[in-house]
C-alpha cells in the first residue's frame, strides 16, 4: 500500500465497516483502494456509484455519498458482475 495523497477523506465507524465486511467481505482499506486506483464514477439521484479495483485485483462496485467538505461515506460494496467488469474496462481504458 503506497502513499495515497490524492484520496478523499473517508467517514468510517464500526457500523459501516461491519456492514461491508459481514455482507460482502470488503474491508475499509479495500474500499479506499478502489478510490485510489483507476475507477469510473457516476451519479444516480442522491447516490454516487463507483466501479474500481483493489490493490489485489478485486473488482468492486461501491455505493457512496459525498458529505460536506467532500468527506466520503461508503454505504455498501459488492463484486462486479461479469457485464459490469466489461463496462469498467471500457471506461478506464
Amino acid at each position, binding site marked *: *500500500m503506497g502513499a*495515497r*495523497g*490524492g*484520496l*478523499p*477523506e*473517508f467517514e*468510517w*465507524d*464500526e457500523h459501516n*465497516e*461491519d456492514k461491508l*465486511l459481514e455482507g460482502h*467481505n470488503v*474491508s*475499509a*482499506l*479495500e474500499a*479506499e483502494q478502489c*478510490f485510489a486506483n483507476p475507477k*469510473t*464514477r*457516476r*451519479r*444516480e439521484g*442522491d*447516490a*454516487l*456509484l*463507483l*466501479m474500481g479495483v483493489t490493490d489485489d485485483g478485486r473488482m468492486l*462496485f461501491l*455505493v457512496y*455519498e*459525498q458529505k460536506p*467538505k*467532500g*468527506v*466520503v461515506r461508503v*454505504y*455498501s460494496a*459488492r463484486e462486479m*458482475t461479469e*457485464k*459490469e467488469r*466489461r*463496462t469498467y474496462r471500457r*471506461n478506464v481504458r
Partner: protein
Amino acid sequence: MTKDRWDELLDRDWSDAWDTLPEAPDLVPRGKTAQITLRLPATMVARVKRVAAARAIPYHTLVRAWIVEGLRSSAVPEVEEPDTEAQTAQLNIKLDQTMLDALKARGHELRKPYHRFARELVEWETEQAEAALGLDPTASHLPAIKELMVLLLHATNQRGDSAVRGMTRLQKLLFVLEQKLAAQTRSYAFNYGPFNEDVNDAARALEVAGFIRSSEPVASGPPSFQQMIATVIDRARSEDEGKVVEFALNDRGHEVAETLRQSSPSYDQLFKFVESIRQEWDTGDINELVDRVYETWPQYAEKSVIRDKVARRTERRRGR
C-alpha cells in the same frame, strides 16, 4: 440514504445504464491530519481518563501511544465482546494519515473493522494499565456529568418544568443526584457548599454543541478555573438580585436526551431515577434546596461562607 435504497442500488446490474448516467462530482483530496472517533461505554472512557490521570498525561496522548504501540506489535488484543452497556461516550484521537492508513491495513489483515481493533486495543491496554497501577476496574463509576445534566434537564419537577433556574440549583441538584446514585460525588466543599467546576464546563459544552440554551451568552474558548469560580460567584450574586440564569434543553437537546434514555434499559432506569430526584428535591425555593443539602451533607458545607446564614435559616424554619 436508507438501507432499502442502497440495497436497491446494489441489487441492480449497472452495465447497460452506466454510460447514460451523469459523472459523479469531483473528489476532494484529504488533509494531512486525521482523527479516529472511538465509541465506548461511558464507564470505559472514565477508566481511560483515570489511568491517564494516574500517569499524569493527557488521555488523548495516552490513547495515541497505545495505538502506536499496538501497530508496532503483532499481538492482537484479547478482550471480551462488549457487554450490553450503551456506547454513549466517544474519544476523538488525532492521528497523522500514515498512522491511520496503518490502522486500516491492520484491520484489513485481521478482517475486522479497524475501529473495533483500535477500541479493543484501548480496552485491553486500560485493563493492563489498571492492573499495573493497582486501580480497581470494578469501582463504582458515576455516569458522565454531561449525561446526568442532559437527563436532568429532560426530566421535570413537580410543576412540570424541565428548565433548571440558576447555576446554584444546577450544581446542587447534580450533587444530590451523584450522592443518591453512588454515595459519592465529584463535588468538593467550597465557598457556597458542594461545588464541581465540571458542571460549568459541561453546561458550556452542551451549549456549544447546540443542545442547551441558557439565558447568558457563552464566551468563546474554554474558561479558566478562576473564570468559572468568578462566574459562579457572580451568578450567586445575580440570583440574590433576582436575575437568575436559566438552563434548558432546546428541541434538539430533548431529542438527544430521549435517544440516550431509550438507548438501553439502564439509561431508562437512570432517567426515572433522575426524574424522581427532581420531583423530590427541586421544589421551588432555592434556599430550601441549599438548606436541605447543607443539613444532609454537612461535610460539604464546612468551607461555606454562608454556612451560618443557612444554619440560622434552618433553625427559623424548624421553629415555625
